[in-house]
């Protein structure tokens, strides 16, 4: 059978990919991608732990449920922000979003 460790390793790799994207990318939409990947890595961990360590209880799944719901909102608000930033700045390069700088 697949061990819990392998799930954790997959999740760690996803997290690494996400962190990489978060620290390197300049396109706001890509940054959103990276955030979603990180959230997914966390979700995977919750689901795996709840399955392996605490079978009758599904609290981990509940947290994933909340997390998915929150991710949808986050995407909606984030994209609305990106849209408005694009409208104001005609760019979604996070480096160029510095109009607030005095």
């Amino acid at each position, binding site marked *: *059978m*697949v*061990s*819990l*460790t*392998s*799930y*954790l*390793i*997959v*999740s760690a*790799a*996803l*997290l*690494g*990919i*996400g*962190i*990489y*994207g*978060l*620290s*390197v*990318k*300049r*396109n706001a*939409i*890509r940054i*959103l*991608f990276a955030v*979603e*990947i990180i959230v*997914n890595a966390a*979700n995977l961990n919750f*689901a*795996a732990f709840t*399955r*392996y360590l605490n*079978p009758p*209880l*599904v*609290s981990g*799944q*509940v947290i*994933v449920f*909340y997390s*998915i719901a929150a991710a*949808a*909102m986050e*995407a*909606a*608000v984030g*994209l609305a*922000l*990106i*849209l*408005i930033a*694009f409208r104001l700045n*005609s760019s*979604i390069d996070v480096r160029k979003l510095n109009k607030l700088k005095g």
Partner: protein
Amino acid sequence: MQIVIPPDLVFVLLAAVTLIAAVLALQAKELIYGAIALGISFIGIAGFFVFLDAPYLAMLQIAVYVGAVVVLILFTIMLVRREQSDELLDRPEGGQGAVGLWLAGLLAVAIAGVAALAGPNLPAAPPAGNLPVSSLGLVLAAEYPIPLVILALLISAALLGALVLAKVEK
């Protein structure tokens, strides 16, 4: 003749698809392809959820992440598509690429290392028995009703916020 697929193989394939798609999502030249790869990666995660006896989460993952989040992302990409310098935009500045790579690598190695270290203490196989779908609903309603309400309020707030933000001033 029945072909028995070993679960390990499925797991490895799923992991490969998920991870490669995640990398592609960030590295694909065309943003649209990135979004599609992101969708594939999400579907891979949904596959893991099925493996983990959480079919409801898997379906939710597909419906919400792929069906809503990726659609929203695609939509936004198409709205801001005037910016054609995608590749230029995503070329990391200075040594950022290397730093990001090192940071991500170290983090992943550390977590995977701890997971492997703790490996002997962790169960190698899940306990027997299934998690019925209805248990999720029961736990949700019996133990976490207040977070559920807060979540609903949060969603409404986020919806209104997004509407206000994206509204075109006339």
